[in-house]
């Protein structure tokens, strides 16, 4: 069972019910559960969307698109049914926040799904979890069944004449399915291959109907926002970045874990104070700030860096999924780059040539390099390949592979050069990364 951690700097909003048995519906109701849904039902779509806009909530999957605005794009009138889709395919390396949400507070996800449905006028919502999360799927399925039994879901939710149904869906192992249109394909029983955009899901989504798709953390934030009010939620965070974020700190820190901190919280403080500093008193070498696809940051770049979408963007990386991966001075950056690219090579769906070929060639080049058979030209080739993948694919997986690669080569070029001409790796540990 994943261990819960705590720190005084945390502002517990989404995590406020963690460890309190809230997966049980009666316990959840004692803790104020489903009040926001009742309120949303009484106040109506316009009020919900205005509160969401005022909250400054931005998509927690990684793109950071304002949630209220996203919901407002869905056409009011549609010939085809509208849908709400909750993305719980959490697969970005370094990311495990939704794991805890499903485990400790599945009803918050259900509430958020219903509220999103009320906001856009949908009658059906899907909660899609990655297949590996079977025990969490069972928890969510039980929560959904309990909500039906109480009349919170069904033909007449909370005794109103409004209908809302929820279907829980399992994946079967595919990072790419975390991309919104690939997730829709998967939910339609197909290979998880991205669709070309436009049209965007808000207009043509699941089964061709207007669809809102949000990350599980985004959805779980919604009932809390309506309970505390949009402006109060916004005030917790930083400018244009409302509220809190579930930061998952992993790697070489003393106290790894999921911490809920205000948006804009300083990254250095997050590593040294919240997560207890570098393991074994070693030195920080680098930080991957938001899941494996986000470009690496150096120690001097995190000194005054606030963790929100805009500040991390300005620093040349991305806030992404909030998965902070901390590396100490024992790490070989060539090996780390190789392991990162091996993942994207394995997960590329093969639909777009720049991604399929690019990730494969990057992996081949880095494998050769890591083995000590690289040449100076390889370093430039790796950079050239990565640059030519950027922006040339249907979905962001190509970018997700290219961006960190560019970061590693640019910021650790010296370390790549140290691997040239069959010289042994200057770092203690060396492993073959051969995931086939």
């Amino acid at each position, binding site marked *: 069972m*994943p261990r819960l951690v705590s720190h005084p700097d945390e502002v517990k909003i989404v995590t406020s019910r963690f460890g309190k048995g809230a997966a049980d519906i009666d316990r959840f109701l004692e803790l104020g559960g489903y009040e926001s849904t009742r309120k949303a039902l009484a106040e109506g779509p316009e009020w919900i969307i205005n509160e969401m806009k005022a909250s400054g909530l931005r998509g927690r999957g990684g793109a950071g698109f304002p949630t209220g605005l996203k919901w407002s794009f869905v056409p009011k009138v549609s010939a085809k049914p509208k849908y709400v889709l909750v993305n719980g395919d959490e697969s970005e390396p370094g*990311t495990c926040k939704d794991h805890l949400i499903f485990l400790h507070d599945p009803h918050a996800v259900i509430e958020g799904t219903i509220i999103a449905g009320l906001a856009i006028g949908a009658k059906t919502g899907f909660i899609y979890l990655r297949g590996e999360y079977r025990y969490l799927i069972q928890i969510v399925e039980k929560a959904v069944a309990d909500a039906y039994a109480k009349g919170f879901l069904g033909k007449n939710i909370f005794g109103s004449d409004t209908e809302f149904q929820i279907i829980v869906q399992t994946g079967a192992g595919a990072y790419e399915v975390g991309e919104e249109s690939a997730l829709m394909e998967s939910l339609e029983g197909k290979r998880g291959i991205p669709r070309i955009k436009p049209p965007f899901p808000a207009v043509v989504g699941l089964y061709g109907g207007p669809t809102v798709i949000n990350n599980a953390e985004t959805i779980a934030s919604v009932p809390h926002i309506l309970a505390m009010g949009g402006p109060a939620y916004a005030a917790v965070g930083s400018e244009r970045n409302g509220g809190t974020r579930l930061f998952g700190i992993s790697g070489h820190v003393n106290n790894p874990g999921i911490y809920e901190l205000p948006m804009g919280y300083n990254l250095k403080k997050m590593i040294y104070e919240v997560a207890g500093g570098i393991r074994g008193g070693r030195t920080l070498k680098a930080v991957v700030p938001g899941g494996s696809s986000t470009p690496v940051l150096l120690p001097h770049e995190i000194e005054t860096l606030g963790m929100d979408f805009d500040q991390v963007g300005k620093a040349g990386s991305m806030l992404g999924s909030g998965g902070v991966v901390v590396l100490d001075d024992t790490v070989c950056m060539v090996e780390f780059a190789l392991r990162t690219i091996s993942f994207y090579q394995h997960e590329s769906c093969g639909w777009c040539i720049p991604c399929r070929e690019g990730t494969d060639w990057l992996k081949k080049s880095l494998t050769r390099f890591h083995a000590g058979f690289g040449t100076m030209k390889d370093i430039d080739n790796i950079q050239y390949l990565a640059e030519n993948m950027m922006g040339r694919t249907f979905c962001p997986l190509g970018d997700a592979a290219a961006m960190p690669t560019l970061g590693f080569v640019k910021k650790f070029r010296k370390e790549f050069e140290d691997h040239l001409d069959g010289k042994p790796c200057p770092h203690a540990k060396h492993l073959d990364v051969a995931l086939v």
Partner: protein
Amino acid sequence: MSTETMSIFSPALATRFDALVLKYPVKRSALIPMLLYAQDEVGYVSDAVMAEIAERLSITALDVKNVASYYSMLRFKPAGKYNVQVCTNISCMLRGGYEIFDHLQEKLGIGHKGVTADGVFSLEEVECIGVCCWAPAIQVNYDFHDELTNDKVDQVLADYKAKAATEGAR
């Protein structure tokens, strides 16, 4: 289809599938869950599994295979009774994921995608399984085991071995 006479699945799973295909706006949406649940029962996605699922969804078996081959959790050969999946992705790698994988290879005497001779264990190196903050971690079938050391791994294996001895291998 008449599930009682024709299905290759247990009556419970056949009944579950009867309901599953009616749950969605489009029948085919049941495909991926059906493949995974069938694998849970049969042990792998066999040709017979794909044929029956195809018939239940009114699509071709080739269509089913095309989709099934996309998803990494679905396999076309039997695995061990306990499929040990080791994450070696970055967060686990930094905290000893490869050492755990090496230890498991040595203990079980098999490599990536190998099955032990008694059929009790199979081993697989997998991508991120979503337990990064509690690394290194493995998943045995659907059960997570986190914050591992080699000693803890030995205990986990011993527990499953004892379980297999009472229940019998697949």
